[in-house]
């Protein structure tokens, strides 16, 4: 029943709006409530540990995944962590919030089938790195906890997730040409719009906070983002670049956009020495993600 897009050959093009509607009717659409709920909980400073644990406990798959991470090699707890309240005390409130969000977003990635699985795995790993990298920049450079940055980084490729499941021809073409092309150009050619547009439109349709939809829509073109919230978009861009440097399995642009990158560095007053330090930190964080079982 899934409508496959085959614009390049037939000239039959599905509009962005049609695509969003189709997504909303699919399994992914049913995740909307959950994702939005956890997003609002994670980004509300007044959220208490009780509310978080109550929310997680009403979602058994989420609950079991968090407990699995809590009992992973990284945390190395001598005692078995058997309850979410225990996990919050043991891992920390913020960690559990992050875990809850990642696992929920991870469900979006799981709806794919066959063809795009390989790419989705790499895409998830990349997204985790961008989330952690963005947070790192926020903490080290702006002395901010970086929860928003984490979320923005995690979701920045939302458009690709949709594409992988609803516009398989793009991925098929990409695979055939062994990632040599620029994804955006390919998408524009086949679909008439690209994954930035798709992600941005879905984020709007799902009523995500503005900072998230902006960082999705402009993650390749931060200079076009609205003034308000541009710092986050630029941070995601920088983290995206760093992540691509240390994790080469995923790359949707053939070459770094040096001009945009330099502009971001300048605008955010990040010195090149600081970037080197951040790159090293991210490399360490990647190891930690592997130990936590959060890298596939």
């Amino acid at each position, binding site marked *: 029943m899934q409508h496959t897009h085959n614009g390049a050959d037939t000239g039959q093009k599905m509009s962005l709006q049609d695509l969003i509607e189709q997504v909303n009717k699919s399994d992914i659409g049913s995740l909307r409530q959950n994702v939005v709920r956890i997003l609002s909980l994670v980004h509300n400073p007044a959220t*208490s*540990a*009780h509310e978080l644990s109550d929310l997680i406990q009403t979602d058994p798959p989420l609950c079991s995944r968090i407990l699995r991470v809590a009992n992973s090699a990284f945390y190395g707890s001598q005692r078995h962590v058997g309850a979410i*309240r225990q996990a*919050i*005390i043991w891992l*920390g*409130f*913020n960690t559990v919030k992050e875990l809850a969000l990642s696992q929920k977003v991870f469900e979006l990635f799981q709806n794919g089938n066959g063809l795009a699985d390989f790419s989705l795995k790499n895409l998830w790993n990349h997204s985790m790195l961008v989330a952690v990298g963005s947070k790192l920049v926020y*903490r*080290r*450079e702006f*002395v*901010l*906890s970086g929860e928003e940055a984490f979320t923005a980084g995690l979701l920045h490729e939302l458009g690709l997730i949709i594409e992988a499941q609803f516009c398989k021809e793009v991925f098929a073409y990409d695979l055939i040409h062994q990632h040599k092309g620029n994804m955006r150009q390919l998408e524009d050619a086949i679909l008439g719009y690209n994954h930035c547009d798709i992600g941005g439109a879905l984020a709007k349709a799902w009523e995500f906070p503005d900072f998230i939809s902006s960082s999705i829509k402009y993650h390749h073109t931060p200079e076009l983002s609205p003034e308000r919230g541009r710092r986050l978009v630029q941070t995601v861009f920088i983290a995206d670049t760093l992540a691509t440097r240390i994790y080469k399995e995923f790359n949707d642009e053939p070459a770094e956009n040096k001009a945009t990158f330099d502009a971001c560095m300048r605008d955010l007053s990040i*010195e090149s*020495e*600081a970037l*080197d*330090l951040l790159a090293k930190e991210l490399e360490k964080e990647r190891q930690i993600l592997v130990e936590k079982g959060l890298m596939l």
Partner: protein
Amino acid sequence: MNTDQNQKLQQRIKELEIELRHLRNDYDLTRREVDVAKGNFLDMLKSLEDINVELADRNAKIEQQKAEIDNQYRLFRTLLDEIPNPVFYEDAQGNYLGCNKAFCQALGITSDKVEGKTAYEIFPRHDAELHHRMDDKLIRQGGILHYETCILFADGLDHDIVISKAAYLDAGGRILGIVAVCSDVTQSKRNELELRQSNRAKDKFFSIISHDMKNPLNALMLTTEFLQDNHQDLTKSKVEDMLGNVHNSAKRLNALLSNLLQWARSQSGRIPHEPTHLDLYNLVEQIISLAASTAREKSIELASDIPRGMFIYADRQMLMTVLRNLVSNAVKFTQPEGKVLVNAILLDDWVEITVADNGIGLSKADIDKLFRIDVHYSTKGTSRETGTGLGLILCFEFVERQGGEIKVFSEVGKGSTFRVRLPRQDAD
């Protein structure tokens, strides 16, 4: 230090400064986050404490409820055990859940032989079937039911028991089981039987007085009245004849009265049992001599085969009454030219005395009535002698009171043998 080195050093210093800034930033953030985490942790701890307090509270309540239930159980147990009637209770499937002390004592079992068992494991099969049937009925219809049965108690006796069973219900009206109370009606049934018997005895007493005494008394009055009015007109031999009749009537009345008085005294328990060593030969001779004139009149041979020197340990008055009645009965129910023989032999445990005749005999049905006070049985003798039906009843009672037994062997037309067995007590 050259410029190049200097530049490198400057670069390194800058790097370290940035690293320091990063670390400081991270430190500041981490401290803030630790504070928040501490808050969360304390929050969690507090909620755990709240849960603990609530748990302690709930535990205390449960303990209190347990104590209340315990006390109620004690009350129930005491109540149950202090009830003198045997009580037991079962579930709706017929499993006995428990019983009281009286029940255990009555059946001579412990409560663990009752709990969890069915009627079939407690009572003999036939009884169990009855209880089971009644339980079924009660479970079907609810309410209360009573039934009577006979249960062998630990005292070795069969007791007449009325069992009252009631269904007990849960709050929703569903039958949970059965409570049963046993009432021992053995004594009251016995009392009732005795009462009925003594009532019959009283009736018999009055019937004897009104009927058997009135006739000879009437004859006596009429004869004496006739004699008073006409003795001058009568021949001497006629007068003597009539006086003989008067004497006979008086004798019969006397015999009857003496039996009646003895019987009445025995009924009120005023005849003491005072056994002594008696010379049976002499005793029987005396009795034969008393009956000899009547026997002679009917040309009946009355004899004793008892050897001289046979002694017996018995109450003289009672034995005399028994043998007098048996001998006079034998003469009464034997045709002229017949024979009545009294004999006695010593057995291991008994002295057996028999009074045998070759008279008219008794039917099986009549034999059954002989010793019963509640059935009036009296037959006229072969010479139309009247009887009271009291003699044999006295015999039966007196023999029984001495620990003996009396039996009749008889055939219609061939004669009867009355056998009295009294326990031998030579040792005394």
